[in-house]
């Protein structure tokens, strides 16, 4: 390429899961809402009413995409807060039925921790999510591809004492899509509400209708961080799990400009979602095929039933932290679920539950702006980076 400056390669950001760059229209909407929606929407003067109109419009727009009624959609302080509040308030609404929250083993840590907390608060099970799949009555196991055992999950939901069930739409770490429809059918028949964490999927694939509570993450679809979306069907009984507040889903209220930018971003990504999904799926297929030619690699997650923009693989005899650093040095930002890259030195509970190699793990999530050229460059650099890290550890011939 004639315009490229030798020696100063541009950065390629492939770690967009849960924190993607803002969509250009979201930035525009945010600017506009700073002017029109800075006021407290709960106040009765003209400025407050103008902010309230923006917030109502944002809820309406999000509701239309999620297939919900406007009054079923709530903005929260963020995705983790959405999941915590959803578990706490739905479980509190059914405390007479029991205190067990049935989850898959690959739910986000926020869901697993909230489920353990709910059970511990009721004195039912000890808190803590170490060894999640191994504890009887604990999270429901997944197969090698990361898909939950639907029969086991349904059996757990039908057991006595269940307040709530939680199953993600798709796993953001490995991309595998979960059987939410069949689990929701069974949960409905059992009278147990189902929380669907769609934080990794909304904006990338069609939103499922199979949910009673649905959490979605604006920071993942090109909207701002610092605001979350939680939809709760009107038929679901909830109870406040915290101190009284005018807005129990976001005590003190949410930022109107953030909520408005989140809604505009969602409308924008929905407008060409199908084309974007097809384009990114082709690029991810290319990455998975190319990576499988590197010696001693496990390409992780379901090859078919998966998110279009996520790819994950683990390299044998590779230090995950060293590989992330080596790729960063060459201009590529990637994620990893390896223990050495986490603050706790514990490997990803998702990889652990799947029984795949946890060391040498690399995970990429393509942005809408990621180009085919960037992916080709990544595929060209990766084999050498893996080889160099292996060389440092002296693993030739093993």
């Amino acid at each position: 390429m004639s315009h490229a400056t030798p020696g100063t390669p541009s950065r390629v950001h492939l770690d967009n899961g849960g924190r993607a760059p803002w969509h250009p229209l979201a930035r525009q909407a945010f600017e506009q809402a700073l002017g029109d929606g800075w006021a407290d929407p709960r106040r009765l003067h003209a400025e407050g009413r103008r902010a309230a109109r923006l917030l109502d419009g944002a809820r309406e727009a999000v509701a239309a995409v999620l297939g919900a009624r406007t009054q079923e959609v709530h903005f929260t302080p963020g995705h983790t807060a959405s999941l915590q509040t959803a578990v706490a308030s739905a479980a509190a609404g059914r405390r007479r039925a029991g205190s067990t929250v049935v989850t898959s083993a690959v739910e986000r840590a926020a869901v697993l921790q909230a489920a353990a907390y709910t059970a511990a608060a009721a004195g039912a099970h000890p808190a803590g999510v170490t060894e999640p799949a191994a504890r009887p009555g604990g999270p429901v196991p997944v197969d090698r591809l990361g898909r939950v055992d639907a029969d086991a999950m349904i059996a757990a939901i039908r057991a006595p004492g269940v307040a709530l069930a939680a199953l993600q739409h798709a796993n953001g770490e490995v991309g595998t899509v979960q059987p939410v429809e069949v689990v929701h059918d069974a949960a409905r028949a059992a009278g147990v509400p189902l929380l669907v964490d769609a934080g990794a999927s909304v904006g990338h694939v069609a939103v499922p209708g199979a949910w009673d509570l649905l959490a979605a993450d604006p920071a993942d679809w090109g909207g701002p961080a610092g605001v979350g979306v939680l939809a709760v069907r009107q038929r679901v009984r909830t109870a406040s799990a915290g101190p009284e507040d005018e807005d129990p889903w976001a005590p003190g209220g949410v930022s109107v400009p953030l909520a408005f930018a989140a809604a505009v971003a969602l409308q924008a990504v929905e407008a060409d979602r199908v084309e974007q999904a097809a384009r990114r799926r082709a690029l991810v297929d290319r990455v998975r095929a190319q990576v499988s030619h590197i010696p001693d690699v496990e390409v992780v997650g379901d090859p078919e039933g998966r998110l279009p923009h996520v790819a994950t693989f683990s390299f044998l005899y590779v230090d995950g932290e060293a590989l992330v650093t080596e790729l960063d040095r060459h201009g590529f930002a990637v994620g990893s679920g390896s223990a050495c890259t986490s603050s706790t030195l514990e490997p990803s509970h998702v990889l652990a539950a799947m029984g795949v190699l946890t060391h040498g793990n690399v995970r990429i999530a393509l942005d809408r702006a990621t180009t085919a050229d960037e992916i080709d460059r990544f595929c060209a650099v990766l084999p050498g980076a893996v080889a160099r890290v292996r060389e440092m550890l002296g693993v030739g011939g093993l």
Partner: protein
Amino acid sequence: MSGTLVDARGLHCPLPVIRLAAAAKGLPAGTELTVLSTDPAAKLDVPAWCRMRGHEHVSTVEHTGDRDGWAVTVRLA
């Protein structure tokens, strides 16, 4: 059991698996090796290594007390 022991305590991923693989090199099929590790990733990654190399994962025993960690035993193919 041949009793071959690989002490990888105190080492982090992927070193316990690498030490095990190095110890296994050249040993005849059917040999059993046990790797001791304090790294929680090793108890997951040794069985994965077995799967990728065709070896058999025999057992994983958790030690507590003054010898915290795991003893993972494999049988070579």
